């Protein structure tokens, strides 16, 4: 069983984080990026061409993470590969002992720096999840066996901050029905949207079907917030949030404060099983935020236990 699955099954608060994208620098770069956060993580996401920009592939990064002793969550998006290629990556990952697979639809090619590319979307997130589940059940989509069936822990993503807001929990239920067991939420700077999503997730039993991890973003400056608000579809940043970061004497510190506040808010919500951190800075922002929140390191959580701050 993956340690992420193990933590979540045991009701232990889980911490995951996005591995920064890797271009040059090889394995040294992977180590450098991991160092400031690794002590706190159950697992790290190896992302798949984020925002439709090419980077080292999720399978390659996931293998590197595993070799570094950090459990990977291999992300897969539907934009760049058809079903054969996606199945190949899942089975290939399992060959390397990678169990956590997080299935996303993916940003469109137009979000990236090669908008000329052909978009694929042969599958969508729910059918990719079902495909991963099929492989975990011991067969490809064709029915051809994969023996012995690889152990997989399948996850998904949902965006509480994107319309139709009232449908997002139902869509997450569809992903749970397809076979997802954990859910990393999209970046959000709107606590009220997260709150509404979590309330509905608890009311409808979603929080029992999938382990929900809201995302906490650690930025460098207000310009990053402005950029997200203007250029990342599905993410809105309220003006007061941007102004607050701008007003402070130290934007780096103000961004840390914002992350801590958002994390504390997320942790106060029923049904939250852990946090997923996305840091856009080189410093130990994730470790600092965890310390300020009183979240122990992974080893301490395992040794002494650390449940969800709020009873689920």
């Amino acid at each position, binding site marked *: 069983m993956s340690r992420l699955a193990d933590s979540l099954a045991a009701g232990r608060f889980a911490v995951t984080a996005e591995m920064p994208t890797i271009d040059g620098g090889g394995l040294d770069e992977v180590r450098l990026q991991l160092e400031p956060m690794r002590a706190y993580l159950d697992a790290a996401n190896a992302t798949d061409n984020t925002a439709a920009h090419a980077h080292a592939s999720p399978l390659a990064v996931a293998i590197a993470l595993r070799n570094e002793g950090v459990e990977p969550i291999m992300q897969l998006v*539907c*934009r760049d590969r058809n*079903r054969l290629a996606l199945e190949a990556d899942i089975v290939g990952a399992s060959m390397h002992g990678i169990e956590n697979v997080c299935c996303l*639809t993916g*940003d*469109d090619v*137009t*979000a990236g720096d090669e908008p000329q590319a052909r*978009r694929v*979307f*042969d*599958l*969508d*997130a*729910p*059918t990719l999840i*079902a*495909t991963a*589940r*099929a492989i975990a*059940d011991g*067969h*490809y*989509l*064709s*029915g*051809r066996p994969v023996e012995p069936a690889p152990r997989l822990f399948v996850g998904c*993503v*949902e*965006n509480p901050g*994107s*319309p*139709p807001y009232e*449908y997002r929990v*139902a*869509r997450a*239920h*569809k992903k749970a*029905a*397809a*076979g997802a067991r954990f859910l990393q939420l*999209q970046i959000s700077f709107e606590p009220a949207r997260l709150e509404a999503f979590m309330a509905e997730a608890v009311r409808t039993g979603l929080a029992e079907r999938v382990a929900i991890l809201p995302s906490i973003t650690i930025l460098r400056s207000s310009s990053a917030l402005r950029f997200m608000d203007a250029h990342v*579809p*599905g993410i*809105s940043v309220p003006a007061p949030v941007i102004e607050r970061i701008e007003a402070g004497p130290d934007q780096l510190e103000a961004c840390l404060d914002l992350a801590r506040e958002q994390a504390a808010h997320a942790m106060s919500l029923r049904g939250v099983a852990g946090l997923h951190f996305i840091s856009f800075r080189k410093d130990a922002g994730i470790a600092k935020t965890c310390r300020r929140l009183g979240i122990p390191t992974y080893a301490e959580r395992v040794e002494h236990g650390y449940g969800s701050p709020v009873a689920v």
Partner: protein
Amino acid sequence: MGVVAGVEAAVKRPLFGCRMCGQCVLHSTGMTCPMTCPKTLRNGPCGGVRADGGCEVKPEMRCVWLKGYDRSQRLPLLPQAWRDGFNHLHPPVDNRLQGSSAWLNLATKRDRERPAGWTADER
């Protein structure tokens, strides 16, 4: 394209922007063709829907799934089963059916064929 497919295209293209995928799911998507989504998503909206309801890929266009969601809730005379169908997990598209008649494929049940390993319906 056969005669039936030709008639079908002539009816459904102007009405729904039909792309002739040959495996119509309009009834479960608020009579809004999911193949007109730039990502051709058949299982609901992606996370890129803009706050104003605009499509991630074509901001000037209202998200196809937002339209479908509204219509699946509000269209009069829509059978309840069709409204509930909005949450149905549709299997991946069978790309071999592109250009064929969904009406014929419905009649022959060809559109109900699933890959042998598609077990999500049983779960």
